[in-house]
């Protein structure tokens, strides 16, 4: 069979100079589903975009052979590329909220492909758009076609985006992190939809579970090179290259509990002690309403010294509101919260302030919780007393694996993982009893996530800090948490030990969640 895509020795570089892709070669056969896996900066997205000539105006592409849909693209002009885009290959990016034009209806966005490539009669196009939306299982397609992206749910939006990419029925679909911004159950639906299509698929993803569900063949990219490739089952179960093994070892699962993720050998983590008699945070029947919507509805929990309580649920389930109530940043409408022996809700801020140091927070995106003009020293030193502040800051930085050299750096100059380490150092400064972590690793690459999770476990073992750990990622929670609350529409629908809830769930919704990530 003649390959649909054939690449030999592709190099892409950007001014800087950044050598993003360093001589990779691969083929995609018609109908084949190939996954490009790697972390941010590995060159996977650049490779995918080069296939449709959209690596960017500053990119310089050098290649021995680049055939897409039977065309040798090396002597392509812009006009040739335009004919190929949409018709020869469709592109789906992550997060349709910004990948579809927010100022145009989804119907117009889908119709644009037909119009650009002059497919079908002008008058027949609205009907065709409705058919396309129907084909990606959007209910009430005629109505949806007239709506704007912000009026659709995340899943419907992503379906509409896919409909626009396949409108001209291209033999190749390029999907760049197509499910990254979605909740797990929605993610599973989108993956099923992509699997339904007969044409070839180039899937770009950092998420190995997504890859395992969809791809026939996997190419692992690292620093612009393909370090390993082969059938999905083989690469994910018996990886040969050290990098692939590190990547796989870094994925938190039930099997990784109590082990280090950042080492291939999965060494054991230091043991920790949970003192169930010492409750450091307790919520009883907590309510919070916004308008008519119950963001948090009758939620109770206890958190013991040294314990990790995982809170899972999809976006809008009330997890973050619960975290804010725990931090006493949002006052609940009903119910009570106690921090150790101190009443924590329904009291004046003046009475809370002396105890605030006992509960600290680590957010998903630390960049927005840092003053960009502060140095790392000021950020970490802010909650500390004046006496020997610098010495204490250095000590904290060393604990989170950063050195003295970071004192003068500013948030912008740090990588995602370093920023999260600074956020943790800042939270540890006042020696808290409780750390509230709201999706602390969601924005990180899997290998960096592994290091941060290991760091949190070490801190917990050493200090006996309790963690209220909020995450949409069941794997992370299963790896880390002792007990789990599952939230949906503001309510706790299931609770119990992590090992029980996440392996044999009793509630219908939990079962659905667990099934969505089953691999």
């Amino acid at each position, binding site marked *: 069979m003649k390959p649909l895509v054939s690449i030999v020795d592709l190099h892409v570089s950007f001014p800087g100079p950044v050598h993003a892709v360093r001589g990779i070669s691969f083929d995609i056969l018609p109908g084949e589903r190939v996954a490009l896996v790697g972390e941010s900066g590995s060159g996977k997205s650049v490779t995918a975009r080069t296939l449709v000539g959209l690596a960017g105006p500053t990119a310089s592409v050098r290649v021995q052979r680049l055939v897409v849909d039977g065309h040798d693209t090396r002597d392509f002009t812009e006009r040739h590329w335009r004919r190929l885009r949409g018709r020869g290959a469709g592109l789906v*990016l992550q997060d349709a909220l*910004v990948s579809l034009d927010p100022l145009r209806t989804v119907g117009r966005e889908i119709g*644009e492909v037909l119009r650009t490539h002059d497919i079908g009669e002008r008058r027949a196009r609205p009907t065709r758009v409705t058919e396309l939306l129907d084909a990606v299982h959007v209910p009430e397609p005629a109505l949806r076609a007239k709506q704007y992206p912000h009026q659709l749910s995340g899943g419907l939006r992503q379906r509409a985006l896919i409909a626009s990419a396949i409108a001209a029925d291209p033999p190749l679909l390029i999907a760049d992190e197509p499910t990254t911004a979605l909740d797990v159950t929605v993610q599973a639906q989108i993956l099923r939809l992509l699997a339904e299509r007969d044409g070839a698929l180039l899937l770009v993803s950092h998420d190995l579970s997504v890859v395992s569900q969809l791809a026939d063949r996997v190419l692992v990219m690292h620093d612009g090179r393909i370090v390993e490739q082969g059938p999905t089952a083989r690469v994910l179960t018996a990886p040969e290259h050290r990098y692939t093994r590190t990547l796989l070892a870094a994925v938190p699962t039930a099997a990784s509990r109590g082990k280090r993720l950042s080492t291939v050998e999965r060494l054991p983590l230091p043991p920790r002690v949970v003192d169930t008699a010492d409750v450091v945070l307790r919520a009883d029947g907590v309510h919070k309403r916004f308008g008519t919507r119950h963001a948090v509805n009758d939620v109770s929990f206890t958190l013991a010294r040294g314990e990790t309580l995982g809170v899972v649920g999809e976006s809008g389930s009330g997890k973050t509101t619960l975290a804010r109530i725990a931090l006493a940043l949002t006052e609940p409408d009903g119910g009570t919260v106690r921090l150790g022996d101190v009443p924590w809700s329904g009291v004046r801020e003046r009475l809370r302030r002396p105890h605030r140091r006992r509960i600290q927070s680590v957010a998903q995106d630390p960049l927005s919780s840092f003053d960009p003009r502060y140095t790392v020293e000021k950020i970490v030193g802010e909650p500390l007393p004046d006496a020997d502040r610098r010495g204490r800051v250095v000590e904290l930085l060393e604990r989170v694996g950063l050195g003295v050299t970071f004192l003068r750096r500013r948030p912008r100059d740090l990588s995602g993982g370093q920023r999260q380490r600074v956020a943790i150092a800042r939270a540890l400064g006042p020696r808290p009893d409780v750390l509230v972590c709201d999706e602390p690793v969601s924005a990180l690459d899997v290998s960096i996530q592994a290091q941060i999770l290991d760091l949190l476990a070490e801190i917990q073992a050493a200090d006996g800090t309790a963690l209220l750990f909020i995450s949409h990622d069941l794997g992370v929670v299963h790896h880390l948490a002792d007990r789990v609350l599952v939230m949906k529409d503001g309510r706790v629908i299931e609770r119990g030990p992590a090992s029980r809830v996440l392996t044999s769930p009793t509630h219908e919704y939990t079962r659905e969640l667990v099934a969505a990530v089953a691999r």
Partner: protein
Amino acid sequence: MTAVLKRLGGSVLVLWAAATAAYLALRLSPGDTVDTLVGDGPDTPQIRAAIIADLGLDKPAVVQYLTYLWRLLHGDLGRSYVLQRPVVDVIGGQVWPTVKLTLLASAFCVVIALGLAVLTAGRGRWLRGFVSGVELTVVSAPAFLIGILLLSLFSFRLGWFPVSGDRDAAALVLPALSLALPLGGLLSQVLREGLERALEEPFALTARARGLTSYAVVARHALRHALLPTVTLAGTLIGFMLSAAVVVERVFGRPGLGEVATEAVGNKDIPVVLAVVMLAAAVYVALSTLADLAYLLIDPRLRKEAAA
């Protein structure tokens, strides 16, 4: 719909505030109100008596204020005691030439801004840098200087356009251009920045991946996004044009509000000055309300929030 009504209600409030401020400025200015109103005009006991009767200066302050508002509401701006005519007549005769000038200047301004921004957004560094430099130059030059330069080139040297007056449409071109160039340059800079930001968004990449030409991506996608900040600025700038028009009208020797306003200031003809101020405020309010409404047209997301 309620959002639209709210905005209109807000603009009425602003106009009322402007009217009150003008009234207070007149009342609280040092010296006798009658002296102020008479200004440098003829000063006879009859005129003084007429002013007191007209404004009801013998009545309590609240009644005076309400009467003033009531008259304003009916379009009665008072009387110029210097010119011995109602203010409405003084201004009414001169409004049209200025409006004509401002409208044409606005049209030029939009054409310049759109043309330059669309042609150069995201294009080669050389072209973009050159155009941007030219824009900066015209933005920083005052309108009258541009007017004088245009005059000396196109009227004195080439003789394409009349030097002064308001005889025909050709006489309008140069004044309108000298008003439009600096504002068009400024708008074009804002518009281009908006375009370039929009072109970097994922939806622009998605659009290009459908096979659109880069021009089509700009016209169908990026332009609407870039218009959002531009529309607000355009509303303010076109309001500003009115005051720039005053100077340009003098340079080109055109009739219009400019002449009225400068004469009135020179003669301390306070009622006319106040009327010009009120007119300017009304135009500003009208334009910014229009800009807000245009926002709703451009961005469907705001419509949703306004409805909620």
